[in-house]
């Protein structure tokens, strides 16, 4: 029996499983046995096998895996999709696997025995590979296979002692029991570390959770951590560890709409902030989101677009109709869609895959359209908790996030379904108004925008093939008018002005006519006066000549009468 080393500090054995080493502050207790328990299909076997495989691949620690449930071939094909080539590891001499089959009906028991055969098999594999790690999945098969439970329990106790003495770090799995952690009380033998895996189904949506039930001699996270199984294996999301101490930027990013930038202090959203776009159906939330995504790609930044409602191709087609060519950005690798039905998996898995994608793709901008669909898979509190984690994560990474939220018709407009508005730095509300003329028009308000002077005015929000436009609404005579009502009002106003203009012109023309008439009359009178003057002149001349003639005649007559 080797002497106990490192009594002062517990040495850790890293699992290499993403997130698990974070919440256990470094891994499983080295040289000890860890029990992984949980219900059927919770990922126990995968955890144990991944511990062995990652030990070989990432930490160069050979391993042994003893399975009571599946043959080596079955296990190999199960994990092949995760990129684990068990055959190769076995050929390389780093891995030894043994399938132990216990069939109760083949076994008759008579007299004393022990399980030395099991020890011999384990020992031979440990010696052969120089194993530092052992996985056993799952010892409970022994309870079903061997009739004498007293011998079995004594032998299990001996086995755990033996494993400890061999100095190997062991993971054993156990099926969840009704009132105890495991069906056969394996936790009784394992006092160092117990991990509980849970596969919970709420609203027909499954969620995997991992909890460290106990970890002697080490601090550990106590929460239930969302856990995922994806193409890279198991991963635990140590998300609740995120705090408020993220970097804050004074940089601004464009909303993709000039007038909306102008409404937000002239510059747009804060970089790394969270933006909520809420509104009833068909108010143009996705278009606003697309504008934002388009603008980000235009700046050469990467954008992750999480779509819960539409397929990427459909989004691209629809957005092309309002002037956003998103296809070009996906082609250039700047835009990546992550389109899933929200009911496909639990909130935690959504969160996990989003965070995983964000870590891989490193976007500057994340769009989630719409967040309201998530309430289909979780309660309001759960959804809010999940979104808090998304917001915290994105803020930590200085990612600007835009969430769209569908408001149910009839409800209060300034309310979001999961009550997420308090998480948001900027809230843009889109609203439909119905005019008496039977038309619905879109209005845009900036309800809040932390840390900037923003416009308190309402704008009309218009979608056309040239893009998204914001227009001033008609404000006058105590009403706010939009759409065709605005156009009609504007036309009426124009007509009135036109009429006024026409009136004035006519009056001017009338006056000018009158003036011309008067002037004409003046001309005629002047002409008459001239004629009269002429007449007068000629009349005076005649009279003079008549007087002269008369004088002359009188003189002539006198001379003729020989007047003296």
């Amino acid at each position: 029996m080797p002497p106990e080393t490192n009594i002062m500090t517990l040495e850790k054995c890293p699992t290499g499983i993403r997130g698990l080493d974070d919440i256990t502050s470094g891994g499983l207790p080295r040289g000890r046995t860890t029990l992984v328990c949980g219900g059927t299909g919770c990922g126990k076997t995968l955890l144990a096998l991944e511990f062995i495989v990652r030990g070989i691949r990432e930490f160069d620690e050979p391993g042994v895996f003893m399975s009571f449930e599946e043959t080596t071939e079955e296990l190999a094909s199960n994990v092949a999709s995760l990129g684990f080539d068990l055959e190769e590891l076995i050929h390389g001499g780093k891995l030894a696997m043994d399938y132990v089959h216990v069939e109760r009906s083949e076994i008759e028991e008579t007299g004393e025995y022990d399980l030395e055969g099991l020890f011999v098999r384990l020992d031979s594999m440990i010696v052969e590979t120089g194993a530092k790690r052992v996985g056993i999945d799952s010892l409970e098969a022994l309870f079903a296979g061997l009739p004498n439970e007293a011998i079995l329990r004594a032998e299990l106790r001996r086995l755990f002692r033996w494993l400890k003495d061999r100095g190997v770090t062991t993971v054993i799995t156990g099926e969840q029991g009704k009132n105890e952690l495991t069906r056969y009380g394996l936790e009784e033998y394992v006092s160092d570390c117990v991990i509980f895996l849970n596969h919970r189904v709420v609203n027909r949506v499954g969620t995997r959770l991992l909890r460290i039930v106990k970890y002697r001699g080490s601090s550990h996270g106590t929460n239930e951590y969302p856990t995922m199984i994806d193409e890279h294996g198991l991963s635990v999301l140590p998300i609740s560890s995120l705090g408020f101490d993220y970097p804050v930027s004074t940089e601004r990013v464009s909303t993709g709409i000039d007038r909306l930038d102008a409404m937000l202090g002239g510059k747009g959203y804060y970089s790394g902030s969270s933006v909520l776009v809420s509104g009833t159906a068909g108010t143009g939330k996705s278009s606003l989101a697309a504008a934002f995504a388009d603008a980000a790609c235009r700046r050469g930044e990467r954008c992750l677009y999480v779509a819960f409602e539409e397929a990427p191709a459909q989004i691209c087609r629809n957005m092309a109709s309002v002037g956003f060519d998103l296809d070009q950005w996906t082609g250039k690798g700047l835009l990546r869609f992550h389109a899933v039905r929200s009911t496909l998996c639990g909130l935690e898995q959504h969160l996990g895959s989003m965070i995983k994608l964000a870590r891989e793709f490193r976007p500057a901008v994340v769009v989630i359209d719409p967040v309201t669909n998530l309430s289909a898979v979780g309660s309001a509190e759960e959804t809010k908790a999940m979104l808090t984690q998304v917001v915290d994560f994105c803020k930590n990474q200085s990612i600007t996030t835009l969430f769209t939220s569908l408001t149910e018709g009839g409800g209060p407009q300034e309310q979001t379904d999961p009550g997420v508005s308090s998480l948001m730095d900027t809230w843009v509300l889109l609203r439909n108004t119905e005019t008496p003329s039977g038309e619905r028009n879109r209005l845009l308000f900036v309800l809040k925008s932390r840390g900037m002077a923003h416009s308190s005015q309402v704008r009309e929000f218009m979608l056309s093939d040239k893009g998204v436009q914001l227009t001033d609404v008609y404000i006058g005579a105590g009403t706010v008018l939009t759409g065709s009502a605005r156009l009609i009002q504007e036309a009426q106003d124009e007509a009135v002005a036109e009429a006024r203009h026409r009136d004035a012109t006519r009056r001017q023309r009338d006056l000018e006519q009158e003036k011309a008439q008067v002037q004409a009359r003046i001309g005629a009178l002047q002409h008459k006066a001239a004629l009269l003057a002429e007449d007068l002149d000629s009349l005076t001349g005649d009279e003079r000549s008549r007087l002269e003639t008369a004088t002359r005649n009188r003189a002539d007559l006198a001379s003729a009468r020989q007047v003296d």
Partner: protein
Amino acid sequence: MPKKTRPDTVPPSQTPEFWQLRLYVAGMTARAVAAFDNLKRLCEEHLAGYYEIEIIDLLENPKLAAGDQILAVPTLVRKLPPPMKKIIGDLSNEERVLVGLDLRPR
């Protein structure tokens, strides 16, 4: 150290009821010795001339444990006649062993 006992009168080919037995042990412990003695006595009594016992010490040949899926020791395996039977323990209860080997009806 296989021990073979065959009758000279009947050739093996004409003995369909030929018994091939394997006893797995881990070291020559008292329990292993007891098991072998019990088995030997029983065979002589019931199968004289028609059996063969092979003793496998897993400490010497650990690799052989997987082949017959041995966990407990001692384990007696009836290789022939089929079907394969396994009896674990020191074979101290003769009645149970005979039942286990199908030499006596249950």
